[in-house]
């Protein structure tokens, strides 16, 4: 890893649904399963609440990676929310890939309330990926780069 | 990785089977037409792979007694397919023995007109994947 990368502290936004993934993150916390502090979680009622605008907004404002977590398909608290979210995110990610944004910068994982370990592992691997990709330069507003 | 472990992994890879899915119901052994001639029974193939005792498996009589009728593959409720495992074990042996491979287009020239058609079909069925 280059010297630059050592100094690089990525900003990572994680959208977590209230019923599964946020609880999974809580479980990771109470189980003391660590993951890098670069990840900051935003609680949403359901993965279907995550608007592509939020994800682009995060990148605009300087995020280096955005991950969305929700209940496993079939387990949505609102029964169908994550199905819609899955299609929306698939299309959005595909578009970002299409315009040349590295596709590792976005990810969706389904994490249940019981999967503290998975939550922590997911975050660790995602952060690692973002470190390997380095700073997000393709999808940000220059004015936010201080 | 020990060579036994490697071989067990290889068998899993070739067969595409996850032996841990086995719930030890024995339906494979119940279905097997060669059961009585086998020293290691079909349901035991699975545990030999799990326990990475490939040595015993490849040296068993069963390895060559399996008819590849695939009754166990068809009936296995857990998608474990012991027939595929034993088939994969044979592959491992074949590869170890450094034998030549044939490509399908070489076969016609080597064909003995007396060769039973069934043998061919069975061979293809076995090795198509």
């Amino acid at each position, binding site marked *: 890893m280059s010297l630059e990368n050592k100094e690089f502290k990525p*900003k990572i*936004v994680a959208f977590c649904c*209230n019923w599964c993934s*946020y*609880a999974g*993150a*809580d*479980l*990771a*916390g*109470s189980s*003391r399963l*660590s993951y890098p*502090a670069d990840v*900051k979680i*935003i*609680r*949403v*009622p*359901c993965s*279907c*609440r*995550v*608007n*592509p605008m*939020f994800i682009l*907004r*995060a990148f605009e*404002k300087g*995020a280096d990676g955005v991950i969305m977590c929700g209940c496993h398909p*079939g*387990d*949505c*608290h*609102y*029964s*169908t*929310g994550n199905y*819609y979210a899955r299609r*929306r995110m698939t299309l959005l990610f595909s578009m970002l890939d299409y315009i040349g944004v590295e596709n590792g910068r976005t990810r969706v994982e389904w994490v249940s309330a019981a999967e503290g370990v998975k939550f922590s592992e997911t975050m660790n691997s995602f952060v690692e990926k973002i470190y390997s990709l380095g700073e997000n330069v393709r999808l940000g507003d220059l004015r*936010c780069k201080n | 990785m020990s060579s036994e472990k490697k071989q067990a992994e290889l068998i899993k890879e070739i067969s595409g089977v996850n032996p841990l*899915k086995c*719930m*030890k*119901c*024995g*339906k494979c*052994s*119940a*279905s*097997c037409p060669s*059961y*009585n001639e086998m020293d290691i*029974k079909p*349901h035991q193939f699975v545990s030999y792979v799990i326990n990475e005792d490939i040595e015993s498996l490849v040296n068993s009589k069963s390895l060559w007694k399996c008819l590849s009728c695939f*009754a166990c593959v068809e*009936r296995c*409720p*857990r*998608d474990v397919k012991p027939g595929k495992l034993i088939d994969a074990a044979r592959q491992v042996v074949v590869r170890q023995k450094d034998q030549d491979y044939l490509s399908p287009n070489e076969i016609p020239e080597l064909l003995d007109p007396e060769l039973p058609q069934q043998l061919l079909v069975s061979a293809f069925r076995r090795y198509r994947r």
Partner: protein
Amino acid sequence: MQRIGVFVCHCGSNIAATVDVKKVAEMALMEPGVVHSEDYQYMCSEAGQAKIAAAIHEKGLTGVVVCSCSPRMHETTFRKAAERAGLNPYMVEIANIREHCSWIHKDIEEGTKKAVILMRAAVAKVNLNAPLQAGESRVTKRALVIGGGIAGIQTALDIADAGYEVDIVEKTPSIGGRMSQLDKTFPTLDCSACILTPKMVEASAHEKIKIYTYSEVEKVSGFVGDFMVDIRKKARSVDMDKCTGCGVCQEKCPSKKAPSEFNRGLNTRSAIYTPFAQAIPNVPVIDREACIKFKTGKCGLCSKVCQAGAIDYDQQDEIITEKYGAIVVATGFDTINLDKYDEYAYSQSKDVITSLELERVMNAAGPTHGHLERLSDGKAPKEIVFIQCVGSRCSDDRGKPYCSKICCMYTAKHAMLIRDKYPDVNVTVFYIDVRTPGKNFDEFYRRAVEQYGVNYIKGQVGKVIPQPDGKLLVQGSDLLDNRQILKEADMVVLATAIEPNPDVRKIATMLTASIDTNNFLTEAHAKLRPVESPTAGIFLSGVCQGPKDIPETVAQAGAAAVKAIGLLAKDKLLTNPCTAQSDILLCNGCSTCENVCPYGAITYEDKEVNDHGIRETRRVAVVNNALCQGCGACTVACPSGAMDLQGFSNRQIIAEVDAICR
């Protein structure tokens, strides 16, 4: 501009060990809108809550941020505390600096930095919070039970006994369900009919219970406390008020070729029929597919012999619309189709039967009048083989991945009953595992082995081969003895997997109740809310939620009833105020939101709007707050941003994003 107070909890050392709480409190004062900040040992304690209340009073706070443990833990605590101090509870937000920060980080500098950012995000959100009021909705004090088996009957009785009206909708001509088809019940071996029939009678006689048999739920609208349900009463062709249940019509009916549903098709019934002798109501229906009168126009014999003049060939389906406050689903189960298991020769031999069919064979009212005999030739069997887990615990698409739970016990029951009544018959059970958790269950199974000499063999059957002499050659394996077994049997009984009644998918869709891949209805919480559907006002009773035996079903039925009673006992319901709201000035009326709403909470109305001086009537979305659960699917589906979610608004979430990325 809000006046926000930030309260940073130490949580003893849980937070304070890895987060510099003083620093977080100090940094909070830099944030826009923050007028007060402090830290305290235990914010959730009485004293901590008092600090929040004091600050609300003294500093005139309009918003509160508590940096503490997960909102899933204490959000309600702090919101209630704020409410007691006169602040709208929805002006409180939690920054989770324990589970999401202090507990997973070791470095205090890193932890503090992150805690500050989480605090900032919460402050940014509160800046945009608006006071929310929980709405109220009324409760119709009447419950609907879908399904008239033991689960439905028990639920209905319990609700009715609490003094509320209950309607049961049953698809078949009689209530009773699967239990009415059973002969004896484990582990006590008492007669199924003897314990079920009194319940059926009690239900039908109960003044608070109304039973719609031969009826189906057609449409459900509305929401918790106020469901509107259309019930289709299928044409019975018999006037229920006039019929005396004498049964003459069934005797005289010349069409007797229809397979008897009640006897699992093992024998036939007349075209006009009651499914079984103790049917309730004891009023027959005409099977129009089988009836000669309906097929050819000629006959009419039943009408001629009916002294009550109850036969009515012109009867039409009738739609009844009724309001309910709560709905209990008790749709039960059926056995799976065995077409894909041709190795067991089920469709080839009449002597290979399912356990449910065996129940009918053993039953005095069954096709053999209770005599154990081969259905092919009527001979008494000498050798019977039971095969367990047929279609259960199966990971391919032939069967079901789950354990059907009841088979081990009923097979022990069957084996025991046969050995008891016919000691000369050999009984062999091929099993994978014998599962007997339950009171007196394992004792029961051991009795079958030890007292009755049932031969249990660990190993599955591979194949059943019908022999020319009518015998069945069973090829199985004995895994413990490591041998293959070839056994000649006279009869083979398959412990067939059970699956939810196939109709339940349609019903779940109508109710917007969630359903899993196996068609079992999903409970709101696997452990803590096992009898409630995630959809408010929908409760689950019996096997529609998961495989169960009778005592469990009855227990769950009672639990579902209590939950329903708890709902019906309320005069008003408080609704979650974090619901979607449509801005009528921005709404296009495109129905996209309506299409993704899992609750049917969005409807469209033509409304008069005043858009900057332009008055016109527009088709706009209207959210029913009582129905909306606040998932937010609509807010993203809405292209114009007209639909927004209170408490998690677009601007609030964006403010959080901005604060984190700052």
